[in-house]
C-alpha cells in the first residue's frame, strides 16, 4: 500500500553558540562567537502506511517535536526528503496542511474567550468544509466526544479534559487523513484519558485515520499504538510492532510493599529486593517472568501486608537506559 508518510534521511542541523564563563566569557562570546553545529535530527527514515497508529517516542531533546514540526511543514529540514500524502510539505505547505489535523496537548487552538462552537465555525471556513459535510462530521465528533454538554460554554471555563476533547474535534472537523497528537493526555485524569483514547481508536477504526502520537504516557502507547518508532539523540533506535519493543523498554516493574510487622523471610524467587526501609520493601520484578498479580498473591500468603503499590517504569528513563550506547 502507498505510504501516507515517507521520510528519507531527514536531518535538521542546529547552530549552538558556546558561551564562556562570567562577564569576560560573555564579552569574548560576543566578539568572537564560537558556534558549533549539532544535528537535532540526524538521518531519520521511516514510512507510515494508511490507518496505522504509530507512537513516536523518545526522551526530551531526542528530536521528537522537531521531526513533527518538519512533517507538518512548520520547519524546513537541512537535508533529506519528506512526503506527506505524496506531497512535500516544504514545496506546498498549504496543500499538505489541509490534509492534517494537529493537536498540541499544551497549547490550544480554541478561542479562549468564546463559546467552543465559535472556534469550530472559524475552522469550518478556514478549511472550506461545506455545511452538509460539517454537520455530518460534527454529528459524529459530537457523539464520540460528547461535545453537546459544553459546546456553548466559553473555552476558558472548560475543564482540561473538555478542552482537549474540543481541541480534538477542532483538529478533525475537516476530515484530515493524518492526525498528529503531541502529548494529548498530558495532565488529564484517568476518565479524560480514557475518553481521548477511545476517540482515537474509534476514528482510526471508522475512517482509517492515520495517527502519529508523541507521549510520555506508557498506557497511551500500550493501549493505542500498533507500532513504535523510538528515537534517541536524533536517530531512530527502534522501529517495529509494539509487542517486540515494549518488553525491552519495560523490562521490570516495582512492587512496593508495606508490612504490618517486621518479618524474616522476605524473599521471592522471581523478584529481587532492591531496597528496604523500616517496614517498606521494594521488589523489582520482570513482567515476563512473573505478573504483578502472581507476585502479590505469593507474597501475601507468607507476609502480613498492610499496603502495596505497583510502580510503572517511566518511559523516558527506560529509553535512556536501554539505548544508552547509541
Amino acid at each position: 500500500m502507498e505510504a501516507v508518510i515517507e521520510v528519507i534521511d531527514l536531518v535538521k542541523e542546529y547552530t549552538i553558540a558556546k558561551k564562556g564563563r562570567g562577564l569576560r566569557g560573555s564579552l569574548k562570546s560576543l566578539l568572537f562567537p564560537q558556534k558549533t553545529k549539532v544535528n537535532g535530527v540526524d538521518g531519520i527514515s521511516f514510512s507510515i502506511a494508511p490507518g496505522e497508529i504509530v507512537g513516536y517516542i523518545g526522551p526530551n531533546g531526542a528530536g521528537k517535536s522537531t521531526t513533527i514540526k518538519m512533517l507538518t511543514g512548520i520547519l524546513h529540514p537541512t537535508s533529506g526528503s519528506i512526503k506527506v500524502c505524496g506531497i512535500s510539505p516544504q514545496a506546498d505547505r498549504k496543500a499538505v496542511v489541509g490534509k492534517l489535523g494537529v493537536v498540541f496537548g499544551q497549547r490550544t487552538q480554541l478561542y479562549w474567550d468564546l463559546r467552543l462552537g465559535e472556534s469550530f465555525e472559524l475552522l469550518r471556513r478556514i478549511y472550506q468544509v461545506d455545511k452538509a459535510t460539517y454537520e455530518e462530521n460534527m454529528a459524529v465528533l459530537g457523539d464520540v466526544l460528547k461535545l453537546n454538554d459544553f459546546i456553548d460554554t466559553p473555552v476558558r471555563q472548560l475543564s482540561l479534559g473538555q478542552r482537549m476533547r474540543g481541541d480534538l474535534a477542532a483538529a478533525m472537523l475537516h476530515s484530515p487523513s493524518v492526525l498528529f497528537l503531541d502529548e494529548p493526555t498530558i495532565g488529564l485524569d484517568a476518565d479524560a484519558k480514557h475518553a481521548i483514547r477511545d476517540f482515537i481508536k474509534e476514528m482510526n477504526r471508522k475512517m482509517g485515520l492515520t495517527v502519529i502520537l508523541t507521549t510520555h504516557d506508557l498506557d497511551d502507547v500500550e493501549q493505542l499504538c500498533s507500532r513504535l518508532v523510538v528515537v534517541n539523540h536524533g536517530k531512530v533506535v527502534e522501529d517495529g510492532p509494539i509487542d517486540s519493543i515494549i518488553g525491552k523498554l519495560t523490562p521490570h516493574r516495582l512492587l512496593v510493599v508495606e508490612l504490618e510487622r517486621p518479618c524474616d523471610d522476605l524473599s521471592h524467587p522471581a523478584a529481587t529486593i532492591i531496597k528496604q526501609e523500616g517496614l517498606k520493601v521494594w521488589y523489582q520484578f520482570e513482567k515476563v517472568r512473573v505478573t504483578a498479580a502472581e507476585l502479590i498473591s505469593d507474597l501475601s500468603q507468607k507476609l502480613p501486608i498492610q499496603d502495596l503499590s505497583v510502580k510503572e517504569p517511566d518511559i523516558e528513563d527506560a529509553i535512556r537506559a536501554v539505548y544508552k550506547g547509541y
Partner: protein
Amino acid sequence: MLASFKHYVSVASCFAKLAVQRQLEYPLFLVSWLLMIPIQYFSGIWMLKIIVDRFQPLNGWDFPELTFLYGLGLISHGILVVFFINTWHIDNMVINGGFDRLLLRPMNVFFQLVASYVNFIGLIDCIPGIVIFLYGCHIVGFDWSLANIGKLLLVLLGGVLIRAALFIALGTIAFWTKRNASMVGFALSMLERATMYPLSMYPYILQAIFTFLIPIGFISFYPAAEFLGKSNGVLELPLSFALWTPTIGIVCFLLAHWVFRMGMKKYESAGS
C-alpha cells in the same frame, strides 16, 4: 482565483465577527478605553495650544494649522489601531509558538496575522482624531472640494500603510532575535513626535531621516504643508503629496511584507 478570494473574504469576516464577540466579553475594559483614549488625545491638542499661546508659533505654524496637522496624523493612527493592531504582537507570536498554528492552516500566514484581529475598540482612537481634524479643518478654512476629499483619502490610505509597514518591519526583528523585546512603544513615541509637530522644526538630519529612511513625514507633515500652502522645509518635491504618500505607503508595505517573508524563512530554517 475568484474562489480563493471568496475563501479569504469569508475567513476575514468570520475573524472580524469573532473579534467583536471577544471584545464584548469584557465590557468594563471597553468602558475604560472609552474614557482614557479621548483624554489622552485631547490633552495632546491642549498641550499644542499652550505651547503656541505662551511662546510663539512653531516654526511658522499657528494653532489652527497645528490642529489640522495633529488631527490628520491621529486619524491614520486610529485606522491603524483598528486594522493592523496584530502587527504589534508579532514578537509575542514568534516566541510563544502562536506562529506555528498559523503555519498549520492552509492559508497565507501574513493574511492570518493581520486579519485575525480587527480591533473595534480602536474605533475609540478614531473619535478624537476625527473631532480634532474636523475642528482643525474648520479653523483653517479647509476647502471641502471633491478633489481635496479624494486627496485626503489617498493620504490617509498611504499614512496607514506607512505606519503598518513600520510595525511589521520592527515586529519581524523577533524572527532573528528570538526575544520578546517589543519595539512597539519606541515606534509609537517616534511616530507621535514626528506626526504631531511640523517636521521643518527639526534639524536637517532628522528631516532627512524621516523623509528618506523612515518616511513618516509623509503620514501627515508633507500632506498638511501642501494642503495649507506652507513651506515644507528643505525638501521641495515635484508632484503632489496626494501621489507621494500612497505610493510611498505601498512601497513601504511591500518592503515590510518582503522582510516578513525573509523572517519566516529564517524561522522555518532555524525553529525556535
